[in-house]
């Protein structure tokens, strides 16, 4: 009943994820080889592009930032018994809110807070539909994502349109931008914020009464009710906290990425993170601390992809590897299977 017991409880999920990553890399290599590419050269380029230099490492961490935050949205949902895939919409609105708020308030705190607030607000409809009408969150969030996309696109083109540049919204004013951690890179304070957010969520989920109630509701709603917990209220909290981190992802994505510091046409620079976050969360075993590492891994794959492309391998190959890793993680008891095979020396 000490720290080592707690560490031991992390050992299995950790080794399972590492195994899945290895399988992803291996199968990816086979696919590369079958497609007639030089797998070794491609992987070398991938590694070089993600960790080869200070600049590349900065790029990796920068790309991991929004993924960590949207993964947490999914993880909180999963821990509360929800399959919340609404991060995507909250990301758009977080970005919109940050751009809008900073125009008048001119400081980064206002951008962050409005991202958090509007992200949470956007999850409310899904929460209300779930709690009062029993609408399944997969249905509601996926539809709300589209509603968010078009409302955000419209706002970007109208109220927030940039008169000087048709391809983006008005930029975040210089005074409200997040400082860069490495010069001439896109790595800003945003990464630190995402790690702090992950740690805060960890503390909330495992070291507060609210977290206890959320996890209890997720594992066994009947036991929760019996224990004096209202699982419906727990669900609302889960949506709201998840919306906050997703909204934060959108906000820091525009406040921390030079040179544009704005939302690009078609929401291109804030698009897709909500969905990529699901995979990151699964590889991070729906645990905020695991998600930090999984986010960095996926950030590295995305950052290194450009360099890999120079060896002739298409960019999409990275998505293939990511997909294989996620599938390998999703196979339950994969590690059990392997250890059994090794012990018995055959099936």
């Amino acid at each position, binding site marked *: *009943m000490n720290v080592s*017991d*707690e560490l031991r*409880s992390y050992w299995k999920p950790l080794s399972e994820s590492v195994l899945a990553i290895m399988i992803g890399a291996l199968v990816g290599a086979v696919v590369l080889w079958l497609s007639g590419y030089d797998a070794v050269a491609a992987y070398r380029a991938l590694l070089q592009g993600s960790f080869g230099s200070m600049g590349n490492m900065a790029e990796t961490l920068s790309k991991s930032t929004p993924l960590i935050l949207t993964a947490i949205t999914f993880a909180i949902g999963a821990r509360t018994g929800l399959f919340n895939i609404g991060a995507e919409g909250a990301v758009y609105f977080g970005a919109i809110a940050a751009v809008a708020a900073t125009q008048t308030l001119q400081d980064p705190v206002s951008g962050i807070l409005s991202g958090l607030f509007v992200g949470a607000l956007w999850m409310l409809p899904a929460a209300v539909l779930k709690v009062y009408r029993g609408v399944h969150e997969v249905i509601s969030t996926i539809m709300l994502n589209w509603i968010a996309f078009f409302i955000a696109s419209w706002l970007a083109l109208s109220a927030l349109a940039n008169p000087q540049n048709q391809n983006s919204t008005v930029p975040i004013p210089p005074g409200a931008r997040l400082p860069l951690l490495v010069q001439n890179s896109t790595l800003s304070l945003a990464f630190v914020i995402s790690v702090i957010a992950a740690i805060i969520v960890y*503390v909330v989920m495992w*070291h*507060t*009464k609210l*977290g*206890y*109630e959320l*996890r*209890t509701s997720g*594992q*066994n709603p*009947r*036991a*929760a*009710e*019996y*224990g*004096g*917990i*209202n699982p419906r209220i727990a669900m609302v909290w889960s949506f709201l906290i998840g919306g906050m981190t997703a909204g934060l992802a959108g906000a820091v994505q525009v406040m921390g990425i030079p040179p544009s510091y704005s939302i690009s046409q078609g929401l291109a620079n804030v698009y897709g993170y909500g969905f990529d976050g699901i995979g990151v969360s699964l590889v991070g075993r729906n645990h905020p601390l695991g998600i930090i590492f999984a986010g960095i891994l996926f950030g590295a794959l995305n950052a290194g992809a450009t360099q890999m492309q120079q060896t002739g391998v298409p960019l999409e190959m990275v998505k293939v590897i990511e997909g294989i890793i996620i599938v390998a993680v999703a196979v339950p008891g994969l590690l*059990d299977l392997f*250890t*059994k095979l090794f012990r018995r020396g055959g099936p």
Partner: protein
Amino acid sequence: MEKETPLLEMRDIVKVYPDGTKALKGVDIQVYTGEILGLLGENGAGKTTLMKILFGMLKPTKGTILLNGKETSFKSPADALASGIGMVHQHFTLVEVFNALENIILGREGHGLLSRINVDNARKKLQSLMDELNFQVPLDVPVENLPVGIQQRIEILKMLYRDIDLLILDEPTAVLTPIEVKELFAVLKKLKSQGKTIIFISHKLNEVMEITDRVTVIRRGKVIGTVQTKDATPQLLARMMVGRDVVLRIEKPPKEPGEAILHVEDLWVKGDRGEDAVRGISFDVRAGEIFGIAGVEGNGQSELIEAITGLRKVEKGKIQVGDMDVTGKNPRDLYEIGIAHIPEDRTHMGLILEMTVMENAILGMHWWKEFSRAGVLMNWKQVENHTKLLVEEFDINSPGARAPVKSLSGGNQQKLIVAREVSKKPELIVAAQPTRGVDVASTEYIRNYLVKLRNEGKAVLLVSADLDEVLQLSDRMAIMYEGQFMGVVDPTKVTEEQIGLMMGGVKA
């Protein structure tokens, strides 16, 4: 009898689970053709593990199985069935929306996806099987609409339809009413007279005494001994099973009850299907008494309990604790007022199986100040200390406060629930099926504890399908039938016949 080759022999069976738990430490058993062998042991003794190995559901770590003297091994239940071994599990494996006929022929008739199933033939074969056994089940009703006792018969028929010689029954009476148990025993005797062999797994002494020819007692993964039932006494078996004399009688000093703690007046509650499950019940539970509610399960007891503990809506009527009207209050308020609830469903309501022992030890009191730091963070250190105290006081066999609660045996899980509820310092304890599926030693402990709470002046509302339990523990008892009390009686004065009549719906 000992000279002949056993129908089945298991030799030196060892099972070590991947987490290192030694469930079986070298078990030998023999079963002879045409006998009923009792396999007796507490929960967690290894009975079910042993039978799962026999039925091909688990692989033994070590050991051999001999069928008719020939070494064999089963890789799957299908293998075991093909060799004439069938098993009826504690939890049934029926397709609920199928009728009996469909369930029984499932996987048996019609090989190949498109082959025709000759239903008429199957029906004839099944009917003659039932006639032979004098053992009827309705073949055309979806099994979800049938009582548990009938569902169990369907499970047995399913096995017999597959021409098995050896039938394994895992705790078959756990879910049955006393009358259904009698009927089951009649069927088992009939099967025996037809030359079938039966392994009867149980932890109920009187049932083993009644139905078996020989008894093999298992304790903590080892065979303690095998005796002829006619030479055995319940006391002997109890001693073998738990390794010490179990007091089967509960010591209960007389006590004058105090004021009413719980007052229920004309209570109406609806069931899940919208039916009136509780129909106008009124009663009091007084300080220092155990008020028992007996009756065949499904007569509104669960709904009554859920209404009193705030988990189900009250349609009409009033519930009072002390002088306070608590009708419609939620569980949390009720805990604060001084109610504790030992729920009937341990795994789905009483515990969160995926969480740790200590996380489970504070469910329903997790908001207490003593478990928080600065009112915000959980004080896990304090929770752990609290858990350790409970584990010590209630003698719970637990690998540690931070171990998952599912690693505890059923009896220890139940003790943890009782410990937790008692630590809420309640005035009223609502105990629903407090010893269901719990081993003898834990059962005794829990029963004595309820009596102790009564002696300390607490009010105890006990609902149990175990008639003996209600009779032994209660100061007053009611028999519930179709949502009403058939009578409130003194358990020391009531006769078995009177109870039987009331359980069958005749008012006293």
